[in-house]
């Protein structure tokens, strides 16, 4: 067997040229993807809501890069169908290694299709509560109420209970307040209903309501409820809580502190002796 060095070197040269071309194609596709993304940010970002724009940007950006990578493989004689067949085998091998990543990617796609949460929505995902700041291919980022950024893998988001506080037209504000036993319940009720009727964010429909929740040890406990649009729910709640004491006091309704009346049964007479205090 004769080893032909010239032929071998020619083969290497051809492969080297193809690798260079492939590299150029990949770099060009990344470059084009960056230009397209910048153009989209300038022209579309202000016009579209963030929940619609961000997935669209990701789709276009990664779409161009994937298309570039596939084009770069063409000079090597690797077709898409061949890649898929090879991918089938490689998938088994790589799949075990990158199970979580693939799971996150697929979950990310389902999240984009189903949209149980959108960027800007106040949500609770599992035990994390806050505002969604980004939904990317592999993970979702939430800014918690106290300002921290929590990154949750998309598979965990998809498999968690998601509470979206923005997807309803109104959220209920509920406040509990105790009034003294010598207060007029009906007057307290009317006062609190009027307070909510005067508040701009307490909705007319569903109507606000006040009712006796229970007769507790130290007070009659009233439940005060109104419905507010989700973006102003928290502001409404703290505003009502602050106003409540003032309006009740103005109406002569007392909010009692815990107290105990002691009645002594069959009490014996107590002898009291007054002693004059010594002076000097």
């Amino acid at each position: 067997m004769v080893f032909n060095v010239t032929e071998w070197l020619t083969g290497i040269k051809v492969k080297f040229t193809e690798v260079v071309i492939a590299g150029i194609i990949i770099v060009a596709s990344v470059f084009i993807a960056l230009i397209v993304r910048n153009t989209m940010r300038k022209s579309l970002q202000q016009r579209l809501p963030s929940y619609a724009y961000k997935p669209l940007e990701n789709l276009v950006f990664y779409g161009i890069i994937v298309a570039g990578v596939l084009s770069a493989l063409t000079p090597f004689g690797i077709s898409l169908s061949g890649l898929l067949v090879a991918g089938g085998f490689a998938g088994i091998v790589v799949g075990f290694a990158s199970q979580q990543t693939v799971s996150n990617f697929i979950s990310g796609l389902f999240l984009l299709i189903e949209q149980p949460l959108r960027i800007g929505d106040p949500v609770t995902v599992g035990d994390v509560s806050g505002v969604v700041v980004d939904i990317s291919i592999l993970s979702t980022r939430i800014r918690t109420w106290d300002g921290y950024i929590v990154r949750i893998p998309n598979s965990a988001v998809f498999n968690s209970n998601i509470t979206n506080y923005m997807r309803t037209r109104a959220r209920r504000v509920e406040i509990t307040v105790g009034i003294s036993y010598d207060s007029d319940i009906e007057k307290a009720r009317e006062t609190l209903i009027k307070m909510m009727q005067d508040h701009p964010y307490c909705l007319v429909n569903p109507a606000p309501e006040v009712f006796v929740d229970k007769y507790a040890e130290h007070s009659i406990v009233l439940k005060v409820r109104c419905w507010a649009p989700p973006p102003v729910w928290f502001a409404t709640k703290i505003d009502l809580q602050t106003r409540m004491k003032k309006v009740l006091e103005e109406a002569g309704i007392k909010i009692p502190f815990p107290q105990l009346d002691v009645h002594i049964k069959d009490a014996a007479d107590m002898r009291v002796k007054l002693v004059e205090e010594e002076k000097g």
Partner: protein
Amino acid sequence: MEVEYGYARIILDERGRLEACDPYGCVSIRIPLGDEVYIEPVPAIARPQQLTGCLYVEFTEPIAFSGGKSSLWFLAPFELAITHKDRIITRVSPTKVKFTVVGDIVDGVVCRYYKSVAGFSRGDITDHVKPGLGFVKVDVEGEAATIPGIGFYVAGLPLYVDNEDFIYYPRVEAGVSEGVVQNKTTTDPPLRGLKVALKGRRYMLLLPSLTQPI
């Protein structure tokens, strides 16, 4: 200069300090000396915070619509926009604000709420006009029904004004069918001879319609 209109108060002093107040707060802005500011009526959706693009007016007495075609008149609130160099710099509300959900709490729409008298002609309600209230004319068509109120989109629409400085919303079309009223706001003035009060979007494509249960 001081303007008081309903619950709104706007002050512009000689040093160019503009203060605009309503029941939901005050805004203070510096205006360059020599510049002009204008006060113009706009649809009431921005105060205290923009949460919606629609208005829902409940009638003090529901209207018995006998089917066919008819016109309804009622009053709806508007806000005052303060403009500088053709740009709105702030808004104030001459009326108190309430919101409501029109329809179901999950699928319905949050709208600015107002309760008004309604009648079959403009003359029926003229006596009830107060600062911050403008006329609305609705052309109703369809099946007989009792109509408790009308909800309609107003975001970005122009308001009209007549020679007596009465304000008008554009004409609304309502279709009554199978227990719902479908309301579509046009950009047409409700009467002839009205002028545009503020340069809103005069011609709009794809104006949204609001469907409300009755």
